[in-house]
């Protein structure tokens, strides 16, 4: 039935950080070495339209993996291909362009620009892509509508609840119609109810808009309805579980 198209290919990726950049008591520190390993020979393939959770305890390498897929960081070893482009070969400028054009981000702490309204925050990715004002207005309205926040469009983030802020962040992540949305612990600052609603919202957008979602979490309760779960421990993929017959997008 489905003809999966590979969107992300993480091939034998390792990421090591110099010792002075992280805490000295880090458990992943290699003995007699001056670096610690956040990811160690990780492999992962993600098809377009998938809804995938990366699960694992704190320090397992979830954020590092998302940063690498999102072209925020570069692997020490291995290759990451996003949409057919080997990102480990890209210049910083090309990585910036790739992020701007192809990827949407949702952060744990919402990271909305506090002096902008919800609508202006959602508009920002379009602004940096040089989209015309009329189209910006239209797409912002659509994005806010898709997360159910049209009525709160002119509110600043400090007047929104945690759940609403994260929905604005989701609208901001999808407004420029990226091929991939990365959400790093998007529910960590939300209560269970809001967290469940947010995952449902992302899943709904995945189904309706065909967007590929990869999100990280350490909350086991959110994984019940997730069709694919990749588990990380100590920087290594220890399991990759697919729910049978699920194919979104």
């Amino acid at each position, binding site marked *: 039935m489905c003809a999966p198209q590979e969107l992300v290919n993480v091939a034998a990726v390792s990421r090591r950080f110099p010792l002075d*950049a992280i805490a000295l008591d880090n458990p992943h520190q290699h003995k007699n070495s001056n670096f610690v390993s956040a990811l160690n020979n990780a492999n992962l393939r993600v098809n377009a339209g998938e809804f995938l959770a990366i699960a694992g305890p704190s320090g397992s390498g979830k*954020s590092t993996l998302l*940063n690498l897929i*999102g072209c*925020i*960081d570069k692997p020490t070893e291995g290759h990451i291909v996003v949409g057919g482009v080997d990102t480990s070969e890209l210049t910083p400028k090309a990585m*910036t*362009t*790739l*992020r*701007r*054009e192809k*990827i949407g*981000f949702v*952060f744990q*702490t919402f*990271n909305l*620009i*506090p*002096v*902008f309204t919800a609508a*202006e925050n959602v*508009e*920002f*990715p379009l*602004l*940096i*892509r040089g989209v015309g004002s009329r189209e910006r207005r239209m797409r912002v309205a659509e994005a806010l509508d898709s997360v159910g926040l049209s009525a709160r469009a002119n509110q600043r983030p400090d007047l929104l609840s945690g759940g609403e802020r994260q929905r604005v962040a989701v609208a*901001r992540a999808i407004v420029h119609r990226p091929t991939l949305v990365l959400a790093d612990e998007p529910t960590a600052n939300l209560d269970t109810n809001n967290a469940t609603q947010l995952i449902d919202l992302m899943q709904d957008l995945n189904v309706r808009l065909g967007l590929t979602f990869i999100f990280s979490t350490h909350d086991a309760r959110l994984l019940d309805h997730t069709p694919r779960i990749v588990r990380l421990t100590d920087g290594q993929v220890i399991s990759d579980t697919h729910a049978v017959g699920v194919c979104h997008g």
Partner: protein
Amino acid sequence: MGKFLLLAFRNVFRNRRRTIMTLLMVGGGVTGLLLVGGFFAYMYSGTREGAINNGLGHIQIFTAEHFARDEVRVLDTGIQNWRQVAAAVKTGRHIRGVAPRIDFNGMLSNGVKSSIFMGSAVDPVEEKSLGFVTHISAGKNLADKPSGEIEALVGAGVAESMNVKPGDGLTLLAVTSDGALNGIDVQVAGIVNTGIKEYDDHYVRIDLSSAQRLLQSDRITNLVVGLDATENTDRAYGELAPRLHGQTQKLVLRKWIDLATWYKQVRSLFNTIYIFIGIIVFFMVLMSSVNTMLMTMFERTREIGTMLAMGTPRMWIITLFMLEALLLALLGAAVGLAAGNLLGILINAVDVRLPPPPGSTEAMSFHVFHVPIIMIGSSLLVIVSLMLASILPAIRASRMQIAEALAHV
């Protein structure tokens, strides 16, 4: 770009207390420069017009010899046919009057003691036509037409030293153009106060014809030309020069600025002081703004990281910081201009008096001129200062490691 400007504008007011402190610093700098510059401009103007109206005039005419050599005999470098020259000059545009002058020196005596004097002989009628102000503290000015007694104005210091008052007599002794010693008795008509103590201690003024009798010469030292406005000096100078061709003596023109050595020295000194103040203000604004901008950058680390993660070009981040600095500078300059001009108006209305400056006997007004070029200059100074201050934080912000910035607490 409009949204970016909006973002910059809103960010400026994000931390109100810090913005207000920066605006106070920037605005204070502009206000200070405006008040000091305005006061200096007032002082320059006062000194310039004082020098011109106290007898310097706008243009003076001398023989070329006057500057080529020292006098061998009294007035032997003076102007001979000065009435003819004065008549030729008087018809020029912007000319308010032309007055002959003789500068001479000698001894004066009250019968009990004697002292040296610096004499100036004038034609009282022509002198009045120039509109020059003679500050007479007692008695009266020289009469237009001498009658009987030769009248003299003496400086306040001379009057005190010689113990004379209006109506008292003095004897002036001077060397004539033939090299003989000659003397005349004068009656003190009034006591003058030029405001310059060294001058008042030796100053004596008599009418021109009496001086010519004393010196046994029909020559004068120079002709002083008064104009309708100081601003017309260059124009009048250009028009007068051709009129002096064809005279029996070679004559030269000198503008007031060429003769006002004291004015030039004062101006040069105060300009240097002003530049020094400007440099201090520049660095004060620069250092405090660097600090403010760096604090802003650290506070917004995660926000900048988010923008970079979303694919904002690093140049945009630099532009954003520079825009914020520019807005802050423009606001600060506007605050400073408003405060400086308002304070200037208040100070002028109150008419604050300052103690007499060194070498002067008169109190001075603390008056502030509103000078557009100073307003523009001081505004540009703080704008440049703030823009420079924003470069380092802007570059540091644009070079942030995104992953680290996103993890910033």
